[in-house]
Structures are given as C-alpha cells and as structure tokens.
C-alpha cells in the first residue's frame, strides 16, 4: 500500500507520467454546480490530463458547464445509470488509445489532489487498478447514512471472501487504471451500482487491484442517486449478481466490443 505521506499532490512529482496519454473520466448527473470546480482541480493536479465528462442525461446545465471549461463532453441521450455512463468513458479511453485513466466523480466527493496516491502504484506497475478506499485506514471525513455504511461493510466482507484479498471499500468510484483495466471495463462493466461487481470481475480476470487510502469530501452539490430503499434493492441485486457470477466460466461475454 502506498504511503500517504509521500503521495504527491501534483502530477509533476510522478516520474514517467508525462509520457503517458492519460484521461480523467468524469461521470456527472445534474452536477452543474459542483462540476466546474472538479475540472479546475483536475487541471491544477495535472495540466496534461485530458478530461472527458460523461453527462448521464442531466436535466440541468451540466453539459454547458463542462463545455464552458472546454473539456470533452459525451452527452448520453438519456440516463443510463452510473454503470453505463462510466463505461462510456472507458470506451472513449480505450478507443482513443489512452494508457492511463482515472475516474473522478463529477459531484466533487473525490478530491483530485489525492490522485497522486492512486496513480503512483499503477505507474509503478504494482497494480492494474488502484481504488481509493475510505476505510483502508481510518480515513476521516466520510459521512454517510447508517444503512449505506452497513451495506458498504457487508459488501466489502462478501467480496473480500470471494476474491481472497482484503477489500475494504467496494463501492468507491475513485480509481486509476492502466490499459489492461481500461480494456476490461470498456468491454464489460456492470450496470447500476457497478463497483462491487466490477471488483469481483477484476480479480476473476487476474488483474491486480490495490486499495489506497483516501479521504472523500461531502458532495459539492446535486443529490445522491442512492436512497435507503434503493440501497436495499441494489444490495439484493448486487449479491445476486455476485453469486450467479461465481458460476460463470467466462465473466465477460465473448463478443468483443472493440
């Protein structure tokens, strides 16, 4: 696990990053208020980072806010849900030949200045996917509803057992991936509430996943898409998906999306 103290807050401190084609995938649903700050912070972290905002059918000025910051915007014609939106970003990254992708949510809860911690192990070849975990150490600053926290813990316990490696935060969308990770997720990515299934998928494809402690912030605006009742529904759905998934020989459908 990379040490928090040596993690650089700016990208120039990461050796070798400059030669890579790198992109930030920013899924956003009705985040016109939080999004501009996220984009500014991404640029402050790494001016050489291409930014692509995936507007998941927003009804506010999200796409306009992104365009005003002159970033690439992929506007989905209707709401696909977070899984479909994020996968659009991975497809973009894959088809445009990016070597490294980071995923940073458009609501501002992921702090781009902590991206160095995620990128470092991927850059060093220690992991194919680095995931920012709120619970890997006593990462402070994260508050959430009780049901949601319990859900997150339960899923983490189930997933840890299945993959045989301790995973503390299976619902984190704060990630950095190399080309292998991008290719996998471009080909197959689960649908709503996707990170849990994606974690299992990563291990079944023998990619190396590493958790890195991060702190997450309060959401910068917009409303969380996940209510208590929905958490329960997603929980059942995700557990079903995981258990059925265990009986699959090929996790990914054979036809290729490229």
């Amino acid at each position, binding site marked *: 696990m990379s040490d928090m103290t040596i993690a650089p807050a700016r990208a120039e401190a990461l050796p070798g990053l400059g030669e890579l084609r790198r992109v930030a995938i920013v899924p956003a649903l009705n985040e016109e208020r939080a999004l501009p700050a996220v984009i500014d912070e991404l640029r402050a972290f790494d001016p050489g980072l291409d930014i692509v905002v995936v507007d998941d059918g927003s009804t506010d000025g999200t796409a306009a806010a992104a365009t005003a910051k002159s970033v690439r915007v992929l506007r989905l*014609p*209707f709401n696909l849900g977070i899984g479909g939106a994020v996968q659009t970003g991975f497809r973009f990254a894959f088809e445009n030949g990016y070597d490294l992708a980071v995923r940073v949510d458009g609501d501002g809860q992921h702090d781009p200045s902590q991206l160095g911690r995620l990128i470092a192990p991927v850059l060093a070849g220690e992991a194919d996917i680095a995931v920012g975990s709120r619970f890997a150490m006593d990462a402070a600053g994260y508050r959430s509803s009780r049901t949601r926290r319990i859900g997150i813990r339960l899923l983490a316990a189930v997933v840890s057992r299945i993959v045989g490696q301790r995973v503390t935060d299976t619902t984190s969308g704060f990630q950095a991936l190399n080309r292998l990770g991008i290719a996998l997720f471009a080909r197959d990515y689960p*649908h*709503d509430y996707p990170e849990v299934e994606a974690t299992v998928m990563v291990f079944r494809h023998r990619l190396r996943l590493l958790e890195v402690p991060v702190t997450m912030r309060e959401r910068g605006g917009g409303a969380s898409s996940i209510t208590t009742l929905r958490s329960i529904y997603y929980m*059942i*759905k995700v557990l*079903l*998906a995981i258990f*059925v*998934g265990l*009986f*699959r020989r090929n996790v990914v*459908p054979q036809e290729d999306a490229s």
Partner: protein
Amino acid sequence: MTPLAVSIAGAIASFTLVLVVLELIRSHRLRERYALLWLATGLTLTALSAWRNGLNTLARWVGVRSYPPAVLFAVGILFILAVLLHYSTVISRLSDQNVLLAQRLALLEEQVADEPISER
C-alpha cells in the same frame, strides 16, 4: 387438505423456474434487474408448494375451503400480473428511448452529411 402429489409437482415445477432463471442470468441472457421478480415468483411458489400447512392456513385465511391448491394458482397469477405490468413499464421506457435515439441519429446524420470531407 392439499393432495401430496400436488405439493410435490408444484414444488418441482416452481423450483425448476428458479433454476432456469438463475441459468439465464449466468449465461448473460437475463439481467439481474429483470430477474428479481421472476426469482421472487419462483421462490414464493416453491415455498407455498413445499410448506403444506402454510398453504392450508393461507387458504383458510382467504376463505378457500374446498381446495387449498387454488391459492397456488391465485398467487402465481398475481406474480405473473406483476411481472407483466413491470414489463409494460420497461417497454414504455424503451420505446421512449428508442424515439430519442432515432431523433438524435437523424440530427447527427444531417450534421455529418453537411460537413465537407476535409473538415471531418
């Protein structure tokens, strides 16, 4: 009382439904989201078929005196109605999205056709 043969046949049939649904999910032919109602159907019918006292009690509650397995039909039909209604909403959403996609595609095609090759 429920005849034993009815219970056995009912349990086997409903549990087969559960297995078929699970296999469809496994082979990527059915999304989890659309499988949940079917699984609930299968599991409820399996439980009611296997748990004979439960079926008899439920039958008494709803006023079915002569032939408790009728409740199996009623419950099964209710679930099928729920599944159908759910699918109607899904189809409605899909057809709305389909219209939107066709419109966006037409707009996009018009844009692309207008551009001279050199600008592409």
